[in-house]
């Protein structure tokens, strides 16, 4: 009986010390972790809304989006979308101008094939999207009006990114109508 009690006590002490240490580490790192995440988000927003010094988060009908402002005027909108890629879901943050044209996008997460599909995050592929409106946001091989070249050996990924960006532009137009800002 005495040994059981003794052993239990030792186990308890070890567990308590372990939990205490972890609580300290957790407290100590939490500020830095959330600062990292905020920094990461700000960096992405600067990337997709390059000409907007101020960005305000908004929520319309439960969907979060961002309004970019410059010198008192609306200069762009950013919104997250998801699309089905080759290996799984792709999620994107897309910047759209007040005229409904693409300003840029940033891939938040993806499961595409390394070396093929993940080239969708590279500047060369991204640059094609800049300034396009809904009518031209198609792959050349899918539509005669399309302005986008698909990535070599990664058509499905290219199409997924295109669809994701289209969905973002459509959502921004719809959200703005609901939010009351003029198109």
């Amino acid at each position, binding site marked *: 009986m005495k040994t059981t009690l003794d052993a239990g006590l*030792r186990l308890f002490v070890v*567990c308590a010390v372990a939990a205490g240490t972890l609580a300290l*580490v957790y407290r100590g790192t939490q500020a830095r972790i959330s600062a990292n995440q905020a920094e990461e988000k700000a960096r992405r927003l600067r990337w997709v809304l390059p000409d907007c010094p101020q960005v305000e988060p908004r929520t319309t009908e439960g969907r979060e989006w961002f309004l970019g402002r410059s010198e008192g005027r609306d200069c762009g909108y950013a919104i997250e979308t998801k699309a089905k890629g080759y290996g799984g879901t792709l999620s994107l943050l897309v910047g759209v101008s007040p005229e409904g044209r693409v300003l840029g996008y940033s891939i938040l997460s993806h499961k595409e094939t*390394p*070396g093929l599909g993940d080239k969708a995050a590279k500047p060369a592929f991204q640059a094609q999207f800049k300034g396009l409106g809904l009518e031209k946001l198609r792959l050349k091989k899918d539509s005669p009006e399309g302005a986008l070249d698909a990535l070599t050996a990664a058509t499905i990924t290219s199409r997924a990114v295109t669809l994701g960006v289209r969905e973002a532009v459509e959502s921004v137009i719809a959200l703005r109508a609901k939010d009351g800002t003029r198109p």
Partner: protein
Amino acid sequence: MKSSDWKDFTNGIVRENPIFRLLIGLCPALAVSTSAVDALGMGLATTFVLAASNGVISLLRTLIPPDLRIPIFIVVVSTFVTAADYLMLAFFPAIHRSLGVFVPLIVVNCIVLGRAEAFAYRNEVRASLLDGLGMGLGFSLALGLLGALREVFGAGTLFGLAVMPASYPPLLLLVLPPGAFLLIGLLIAGLNRFTRRAP
């Protein structure tokens, strides 16, 4: 440094290299070795956990009742693993993102519990620390080698910098899952060829 220290330290690097000799800890070795940076990040995180838990367990070894040693080992190891997880998230968020679930999974890496049971519980603190460092370093080197080979030949870069001529077509297979199996098979076969002479 005494010669026995040197022996404790190098044991895990060469003679009992966890990956190439003992074939344990394979899951992270194959999963996160797609690039040299990820591989080394994983290796160093594991080294930290190994050395720290070896040290603490060795320090407490006279106070740990034999019946309760496994649960206590698990508590100690998982404490360091969680600490490593949060520290990486705070200071190396990019590497942490690509390692994902494999950081908390260090806790079931057979090397860590294995060394606690086989070495730290029976040896003094200094030797246990050296053993943990050596084993961790052996693991890191094996991982770094795999990561570097896969990155150089599979993507044409090393630590993200282009090292192969532009005309080199990257052998994509190597950065995909099957490439990991094939490469490690070939490496171990090569090692056998040079160490295990035919009778």
